[in-house]
């Protein structure tokens, strides 16, 4: 699975980082960095929670 970030929607709230810190991080400028766009099996649950938890619906998973 691959993570797709819509930069026009993301406002750097960081809910994703709190749920999947290996994959997402908000930098000092307040912008979201996707540290890896491929999701391993072990990360799937956390990343799905991060996608569902995004208040601006800026994240999507593509298989």
């Amino acid at each position, binding site marked *: 699975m691959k993570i797709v970030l819509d930069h026009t929607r993301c406002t*750097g*709230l*960081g*809910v994703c980082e*709190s749920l999947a810190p290996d994959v997402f991080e*908000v930098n000092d400028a307040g912008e979201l960095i996707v540290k890896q766009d491929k999701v391993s099996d072990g990360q799937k649950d956390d990343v799905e929670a991060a996608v*569902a938890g995004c*208040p601006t*619906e800026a994240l999507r998973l593509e298989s």
Partner: protein
Amino acid sequence: MPSSRHLVVVGASLAGLRAVEGARKTGFTGAITLVGAEPHLPYDRPPLSKGYLEPGMPPDTPVFRTEQTLRDELGVALVLGAEATALDTIRRVVEIGDRGIEYDAAVIATGAVARTLRGNAGLPGVHTLRTIEDAIAIRAALDSGARTVVIGAGFIGSEIASGARKRGLPVTVIEAQPTPLVRAVGEEMGAMCASLHQRNGTDLRCGVSVARVEGEHHVERVALSDGTSVDADLVVAGVGAVPATDWLHDSGLRLSDGVVCDETLFAGAPGVYAAGDVARWHNPLFERPMRLEHWTSAAEQGALAARNAVEPATAKPYATVPYFWSDLYGNRIQFVGIADADEVRMVDGDLDRDARCVALYRAGGRLVGAFAINGQSVIMKYRSMITTGATWSDALDFAGRRRPAVSPPR
């Protein structure tokens, strides 16, 4: 799972929508009915006091899903513009006036309603902000240059003040307490939020209450308890919200500032769970009952309440570190955890120097909360630390490592 089962979700806002989606995601193939008091498709509320009030072209209503998606992809029967009036937990029926909808499983997600000022309901120009209609009216008043008075310096009231100042309008915020937001973020950081108002030209008056809202055919002024008055074309009461439980009074459910639930969001009657602003549940992470009016918990509780309702045998608890955010005068405010602390310590930043500050909250030897203004790069790291039960000294060590070694004053 028998496909004949019927899930009824009462409340068609974020928690209700996520309940529908959560049930389908878990493989529920029975019928789902979504009942909503407002005539609209589920829409997002945080933008109503934030982006929706920005100057410029009025944005569209922030609807979550199209009607087609709800009906065709999620297979939901929509019953909108229909206020639930009672819940019969014996016969398992949601009543909407004369109409009854039978359920096997139900999720209560009726949210909260804005508290209003006493004695001036219906005077034009006086509003609360909870619905899209409220936001449209407030936006129109701001666009026409209204002298604005906000009653209550909570986050919604403060965001409205911010929207007014962006248009250069005169704004007064009236707060009864000596410091705003004490319950939400504690005294020290409440004072920090107060300073944002002052820096941005909002007249914040604390420790004074509203005596009367005056006006003949339209609001004209607000008279205060200290004998002064403020002229106003727009008055917005941001004085909190109360959980929408009136319709449940004869249900037999336990109500105490919300629907009382266990840690799985189970409301105590067979098949009935609750989610979102209306739910007071036991949060195992802090070992206490909580009722949150936050986006994140509404979304997560909605999904979990529905899963637990359709598969009660494997019901899971909902444990969370509360999180909310606010946007004030171009600054992002974020809070994680709880503000009920033995100590609040500022660990980074200086509003005067770099428009940024981070504070940590200690209870006993544990980190229980973190507050940030423009601290997006660290706030969620503290949320993770609170989730895993980090000690206070771990948190301080982390804060020390994150602080820039040299931060020259500007």
